[in-house]
């Protein structure tokens, strides 16, 4: 499971988030602890033998080689002082930031589901089975989905034609996509359901003719009708789940997985488009020369500063995230518009760029969730202090006008997110986009100027570069006053001048 557990200082000396002793607890086979660099998994004694068997299997080697499964190695108490002697622990590389299914675009849901089905299919061929199939076991490393729960694989009974994770896959992968496509329930609503939707929840909400849809009939309608008291027992009692021929059981399992794959592909085909997904092509407030000047300034800034980690807030279709990735940065791109981000995710996946996309609104960030709010981190917990450079291109006017946030608060947030640089595009009140959101509130918001912005950011940042575009917009590069790197650089130059 990818749920966060305790996070604390590890032997590398890197600071981790907090030191609360809270482990994952749902999986009977093991618990997970996070350090700054690793995810460490304690394997309970009863599960050690089967985990060792999987680690030495060709299936594990093949899945790790293809990148579908997170790499594992046996951790020793020498490397991690908190591991008691005699206990069996696995060490995995840490994937940061974790993104949760309620922050994925539909195409990412499909990619995660197809990864799960592909692993399940490979496991069946190799004599294993995937016993858990939930999106919470998949993490995106950049644009690529990776299965992180190595305890999900176990030896398969060759005579059983049941896939134990079938129900979980349907509830947690397929039905949220079905609900998004046919009922317009947002995928973000899965934040509130740990184990997905039950078939009858969807059944009740579907229109009568939708219940007969061939893609939904088995997993929604039939499943609901068979769940009525007295019917399920009869159906399961009459139908054989054991067959003598192992070839037949493998064939049945593979057919089931192929059928689920088809259903996922159809359900994930939402054909979404939004105002913002076509924004860059339709933006009439930008002349080509301004666009070119903006791109050049941003690109030169990346090449000069060489940030390793970049956060792009309001990334849209990711023109500037891609520039950052091309300059060698690992990028996290946030936008509240799922359709726009989906375009970015596709280009990142096709070009193998290190960009993690995340559907979220920075003004209403994803909350912490789960048991005691400690199973899943809040968005700001995952982002705070993680970036060398934060991009906020044409975002501040949204925060002022749509979210009604004071400039000083926006500056405070930026100062917590970036370790050093902030590249911001100021949109003045004369701009058509500013005017559109102003909606007659000129007295309240019509007077803001670049000076007001700079004044608000003064307490945390200094302006180190500035470019004015001919459309009135301004690009500002800020450096944080107290950034660790800036302090070190200042200290060094002071020492040099003293010498």
């Amino acid at each position, binding site marked *: 499971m990818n749920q966060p557990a305790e996070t604390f200082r590890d032997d590398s000396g890197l600071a981790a988030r907090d030191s609360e002793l809270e482990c994952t607890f749902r999986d009977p086979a093991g618990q997970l602890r996070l350090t700054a660099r690793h995810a460490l998994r304690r394997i309970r004694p009863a599960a050690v033998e089967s985990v060792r068997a999987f680690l030495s299997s060709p299936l594990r080697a093949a899945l790790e080689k293809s990148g579908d499964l997170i790499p594992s190695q046996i951790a020793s108490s020498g490397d991690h002082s908190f591991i008691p002697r005699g206990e069996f622990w696995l060490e995995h590389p840490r994937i940061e930031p974790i993104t949760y299914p309620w922050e994925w675009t539909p195409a990412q849901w499909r990619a995660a589901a197809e990864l799960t089905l592909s692993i399940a299919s490979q496991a069946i061929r190799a004599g294993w089975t995937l016993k858990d199939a939930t999106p919470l076991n998949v993490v995106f490393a950049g644009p690529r989905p990776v299965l992180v729960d190595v305890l999900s694989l176990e030896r398969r009974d060759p005579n059983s034609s049941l896939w134990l994770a079938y129900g979980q896959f349907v509830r947690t992968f397929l039905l949220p996509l079905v609900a998004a496509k046919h009922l317009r329930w947002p995928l973000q609503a899965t934040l509130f359901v740990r184990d997905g939707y039950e078939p009858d929840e969807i059944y009740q909400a579907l229109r009568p003719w939708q219940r007969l849809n061939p893609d939904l009939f088995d997993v929604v309608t039939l499943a609901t009708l*068979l769940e*009525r008291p007295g019917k*399920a027992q009869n159906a399961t009692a009459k139908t*054989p789940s054991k067959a003598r021929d192992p070839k*037949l059981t493998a064939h*049945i399992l593979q*057919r089931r997985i*192929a059928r689920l794959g088809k259903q996922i592909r159809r359900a994930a085909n939402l054909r979404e488009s939004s105002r913002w997904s076509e924004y860059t092509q339709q933006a009439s407030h930008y002349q080509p020369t301004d666009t070119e000047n903006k791109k050049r300034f941003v690109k030169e800034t990346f090449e000069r500063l060489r940030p390793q980690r970049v956060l792009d807030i309001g990334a849209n279709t990711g023109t500037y995230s891609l520039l950052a990735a091309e300059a060698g940065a690992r990028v996290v791109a946030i936008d509240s518009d799922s359709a726009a981000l989906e375009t970015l995710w596709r280009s990142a996946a096709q070009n193998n760029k290190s960009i993690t996309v995340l559907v979220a609104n920075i003004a209403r960030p994803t909350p912490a969730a789960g048991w005691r709010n400690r199973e899943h981190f809040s968005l700001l917990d995952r982002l705070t202090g993680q970036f060398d450079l934060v991009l906020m291109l044409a975002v501040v006017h949204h925060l002022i006008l749509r979210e009604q946030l004071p400039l000083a608060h926006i500056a405070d947030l930026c100062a917590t997110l970036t370790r050093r640089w902030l590249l911001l595009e100021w949109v003045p009140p004369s701009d058509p986009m500013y005017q559109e959101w102003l909606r007659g509130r000129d007295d309240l918001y019509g007077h803001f100027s670049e000076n007001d912005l700079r004044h608000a950011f003064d307490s945390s940042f200094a302006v180190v570069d500035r470019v004015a575009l001919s459309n009135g917009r301004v690009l500002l590069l800020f450096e944080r006053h107290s950034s660790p790197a800036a302090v070190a650089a200042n200290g060094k130059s002071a020492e040099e001048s003293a010498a």
Partner: protein
Amino acid sequence: MRLLRVFPLALVVVGAVLLFERPAYAYADPGAGLLAVQAAGSALVAAGWYLRRKIYALFRSEPASEPTPGLEPEKQLGPAGGEDSPNP
């Protein structure tokens, strides 16, 4: 022809059942429905599997007990999984 006359009626009956049925609020084990769907799917695929074997057997020209001299004995037909096998 009789079947053609009965089919629309059957469709209307099934549709009416689905339209006018009311939810039952008694307890049922969650997940039992999907388990039953899976079991039913297994049965259908298995039926397709055996049926296909039977059909292949019908078209076999020579019984396996009398191989033609000089020719390789006919190989056992293996499992045939096609795109058309049913699996709801």
